[in-house]
């Protein structure tokens, strides 16, 4: 056996360690990359969450024109409650519009939630049986989508939107959208 071949086991060990290190430093396996980035917001025709007793207006995908953050939430979702204060803060601080999708929820409880915790949403789409959720590739609330002016999905977040996610992920995207909107708007005056 040559001297060099004595190092084969060590080399194999180092290679395996490197592969495992890379593999385990990948993102959380629960974070699926969204298949919908760059795609138009799916078509839908659903009722909006109305005030108690009043008739519900219908909303469609044409009502979702950005820049707007579409937030999938439900009263049965504890993480949504944790996230709610941050959504209110984002709306107050940056003026970013937020549209809610009330996902597989009870409308009466949803109204109560908004009355008690505050309402950052421009309006809420009532997705009672989760069909819009399936079209959006939602697999658990909360999820948030950033939509540009043409109604295209530019960013998706699975899990809560917190300060760090806002600062590091969503805000940069919003700034890019604002810049391109300014550039597009300038020639027309």
């Amino acid at each position, binding site marked *: 056996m040559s001297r060099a071949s004595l190092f084969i086991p060590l080399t194999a060990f180092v290679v395996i360690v490197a592969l495992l290190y890379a593999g385990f430093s990948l993102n959380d*396996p629960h974070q*699926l990359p969204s*298949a919908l980035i760059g795609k138009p917001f799916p078509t839908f025709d659903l009722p909006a969450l109305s005030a108690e007793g009043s008739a519900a207006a219908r909303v469609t995908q044409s009502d979702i024109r950005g820049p707007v953050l579409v937030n999938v939430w439900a009263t049965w979702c504890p993480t949504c409650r944790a996230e709610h204060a941050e959504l209110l803060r984002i709306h107050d601080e940056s003026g970013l519009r937020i549209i809610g999708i009330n996902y*597989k929820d009870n409308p009466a409880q949803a109204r109560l939630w908004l009355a008690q915790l505050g309402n950052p949403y421009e309006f809420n789409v009532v997705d009672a049986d989760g069909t819009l959720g399936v079209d959006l*590739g939602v*697999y658990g609330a909360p999820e948030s989508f950033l939509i540009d002016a043409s109604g295209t999905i530019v960013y998706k977040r699975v899990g809560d939107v917190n300060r760090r996610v806002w600062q590091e992920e969503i805000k940069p995207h919003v700034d890019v959208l604002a810049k391109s909107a300014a550039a597009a708007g300038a020639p027309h005056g």
Partner: protein
Amino acid sequence: MVEPRIATLLLMLALLVVPLRAGAEGAIEAFQFDDATQEARYRALTEEFRCPKCLNTNLAGSDAPIAADLRSTVHRLILEGATDQAIRDFLQARYGDFVLYDPPLRRDTLLLWLAPALLLAVGLAMVVVMVRRRRGIAEPLSEVERAQLDELLRDSPEKDAK
């Protein structure tokens, strides 16, 4: 003496198989189909896709609410007359490659698909090298070596005799 051993082996094999079957029949819903073909397709499709919420359970075996939603979506699409491939495309367009247990063959998945063949090739090469090396030890003796051996063999009985 052999029979108990075989019985133990069979029991171990049975234990390996049982949990898989139990997992596959975790969720039961009463869906109506027009015919048995549709029902068979529904079963095959829900076994084929991975539940997006769970790391390693298929749609048929998962109790997650999203898996129930996707089962009813598959049911609806079948009744609407969608082909199996159309249903695959529908789910992949929304949930990505994650829901497919067989990743599609693309440039970025090429290594994934070729890795088993590459590893097999490396393994075979190692076997070939080892066999060659071992055969090298048992190489036929050269003329000189044969003469030496004969001499030794001729000598030894005399030594023993002494």
